[in-house]
């Protein structure tokens, strides 16, 4: 997505390069920026649960993780059940969780997520829950576009954390123009769509915000927590 002002483009005030923001398909976005941390957190939660069920301290999480990465999950679960006083009602779940960890450890990306979904009794519900959460947590610096006309698929994410650039002479008004004139040896670009004015303004606003944010010192934010605590204790007192 080119972010230079239209008037600058019209008058060639771009110093020979266009500034642009990358757009990812939602699928690629999940693959690149979400699924790894999601699986890691799933893995840690499961490891923590298994350790808890076996009555082992959390400090041994790395030992268990390494074991799961290197051995058969069924055998690991059986060994843990055999060696520690795991309540019988938790046996089946322990097996499942060890298995889930083993799957996460042995697969990567969305393929790993797909395999984890398949372990749930309702894979579709599980997948929806987490993908919706991922979309909801997309956060500052991102903008979700439902569609781009002429492009296949639904759902695109504009990521504003990085600004890329490309030589203006290698940018063309249409794909056919690019095919006809672009040199093979250089990266070229062609316009495939244009934002409607509402989206233009919204993205310009978010973009400006992204690069004009000023963080506050930790002490200040700590004070705000104190203010919350203060009200909480007041309210709790009022209940009595």
């Amino acid at each position: 997505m080119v972010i230079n002002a239209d008037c600058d483009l019209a008058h060639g005030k771009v110093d020979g390069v266009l500034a642009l923001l990358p757009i990812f398909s939602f699928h690629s976005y999940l693959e690149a920026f979400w699924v790894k941390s999601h699986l890691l957190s799933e893995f840690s939660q499961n490891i923590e649960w298994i350790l808890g069920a076996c009555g082992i301290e959390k400090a041994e999480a790395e030992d268990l993780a390494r074991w799961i990465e290197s051995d058969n999950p069924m055998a690991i679960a059986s060994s843990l059940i055999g060696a520690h006083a795991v309540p019988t009602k938790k046996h089946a779940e322990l097996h499942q969780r060890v298995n889930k960890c083993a799957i996460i450890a042995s697969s990567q990306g969305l393929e790993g997520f797909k395999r984890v979904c398949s372990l749930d009794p309702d894979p579709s519900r599980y997948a929806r829950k987490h993908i919706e959460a991922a979309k909801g947590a997309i956060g500052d610096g991102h903008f979700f576009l439902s569609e781009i006309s002429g492009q296949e698929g639904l759902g695109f994410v504009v990521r504003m954390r990085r600004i890329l650039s490309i030589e203006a002479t290698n940018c063309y008004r249409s794909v056919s123009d690019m095919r006809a004139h672009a040199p093979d040896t250089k990266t070229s670009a062609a316009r495939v769509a244009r934002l409607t004015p509402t989206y233009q303004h919204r993205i310009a606003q978010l973009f400006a915000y992204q690069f004009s944010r000023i963080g506050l010192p930790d002490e200040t934010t700590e004070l705000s927590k104190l203010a919350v605590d203060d009200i909480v204790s007041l309210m709790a007192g009022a209940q009595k």
Partner: protein
Amino acid sequence: MNTLALTPEALFRLSQFSISAEWFSSFLMPRDSAGLKRVEVGSVTYILPKSLDSDSCDLVVIDSQNVFDGVSDTSTLDRIATVCRSIYSESVIVPTTWRPHREGSLISITPAPGPSWRERLHFDKRPNGRDDLLVFQRTGETTNFSNLSLPLSLHSGARANLAEAILTPETEQGPTSLAGIVLSHRLPQGFVQGATLSQWYSSKLTDEQRQFVDKPHDGPVRLRGSAGTGKTLSLVIKALLDSMKAHANKTNVRYGFLTHSSASADLVQSISESLDNMGIMFDQSPHAKLEVRTLYDLADEQLNFSLDQLRPLSLDGQEGRKLQMELIEYSLKQMQASRTLRTQFKELSSPIQSRWHAATAGQDQRFVAEIMNEFASVLDAEGIRAGEEKGLKYVSSSSMRPTWLLSLPSEIDRRFVLEVHRRYRKLLAEMGTLSVDQMVGDFNSFLDSNRWSSIRGRAGYDAIFVDELHLFTSIERQTLHKLIKKSVGDDGKPRRPPIFMAYDIKQSTRDTFAQFGEDSNIFTFSSQLRGSDLVKLSKVFRYTPEIAEFLVDLDATFPAIDIPGEWEAYAGEAQLARGPKPELQVFKDDVTLFRAIFDEARRVAMATEGGGRRVAVLCVSPEMFERYLVALPQYDGKVIPITGRDITPELRHAGRRFVFSTPEYVAGLQFDTVFLIHANVEEAPSDAGDGVRRRFISDVYLGSSRAERTLKVSASLSRGGASDIFGLALERSSLIVKE
């Protein structure tokens, strides 16, 4: 005297003398001073070759007042000689352990062995714009070179008076002229000087040795022989003769002589210098160059670890070994403390399981030592790591492990060892340390790089001579052929690498020669050393027939070992005059043994011709060696401890001090009398594995074969008394019991 000035040649000759602390007060020379003369002009003492007739030579100027501290002067002089050698010839480089630092023409090194490397001695190799060497200013701490004041006037003064010094006849010296300096015919490491190279070749070498020396450079050649058969000497003679041939034919060649330890490199350098009448070792030939290096010198030269402030930790020095043991023990304890890991390794085979428990409780040091051997001989030597393909192969390998390695019968046992190894490496990495095996691994990869391919033609060697090949690990052996320049024969095919290797597997106190996997040949295919020619040496020159007889009986106790064609019965045929029979004495406890042996060693050192450097107390028990090291201050000034292979022993200046070490650290050296202590039952009980037994017998074999004339073995009753490996020797009376 403020200034000492010498030509490099005079300094090299001087470094062959045995020098004591008194010499440094006035630098007097004995009458028979190997062609050197001492003259004083002004405040400068010159030591110059008598044959010198021109002042256009290079000059080494030492600001003696600010260089010699009265404590470690002999070591400092040796180091100055080495720096000088590294500048005026390519035969050696400054060892990494001296922490050399260079900026422009200035160099600094640690002036003497000791706990602090921050103490520095400074050199300028372009004083007043000349190719001389100015040695100046010793500082207690590292300092910016810009803060140093260069005493250039000392150099210009010494230069200005050089012509006068050359013309001045030798100063007549009084009866004190012998004070503090002796030139010995015997090198400190045992080699007897006197014969020239051509005399050696024509009349002193045996037919077998000559057969080896005459081998052409058309492929790898192995030289195998028991201890004392002259392997090192044959290699040195071959290297020198081949260099001289190349010089005579005006063929430009660069030969490398590789050793396993700094001590061996020092020995080879000394023998070479004493035989080299053409100055090959001093860069006098425009065509032939012979460089003596350890593999680590080469690795450091190419990879420049010092630039990254990395100090490789030698894991087979005493300090490194102790650290390694501690790290392994710590890892075992950590694992034992983890309930998860106890569950994971619940199915370990029962001996490993119980030994893990015992080692954690500090009751099975031998288990820790065996794991350490597994690391050195298999995991580190082969580059096997947990979580990598080689690691998976190691774990799942169903092939029979050689019996002399730690018995790891099931997959879970091997997984366990791999986990200990992973933790141990992590601890090393957290300490910011690079182990020597990691350094060699990097060097091996470097030799496969495009960078090395493009410089191989000039930085590689035309031929390599390797001493003590049995101490090189598998990865180290793989680097050898890559160091050779690539060349193509007349038939258009690449030539086989001319590598000349001397070895004796029985002298290997570790299993580093082992090749892990299904193939037990000591050379992998990738080493390109298979099918090499073999020359066997059988005549023993080092020790008496009595010691040879004892070694034959000891040899019979070696467990059989499955290395085809390499494990042959001892075949030494002693050539020396008869001597006393080796003795065995058992003491009631460790303290009595320590006192009795050290006192006797001191007495023998006083009485032996050649001094204490001809007497060694060698301990075969690593645990007791460490304990005795702590107790050594009682014998302060009477003992030289040698505690690692990277330590260049200053034997030349030993005086009446005797050597205390382990057989491994003195491999390659020889002594008149050896006290081999703590050959106890406890070290390798008869029910211990083949590996433990083999390594112990190798240690005893290596230690015993260091003795030329007298061998005294001892054991402590509190540690089970004398080992049963001496049974046959006692029955056959090649070893007699001393009450």
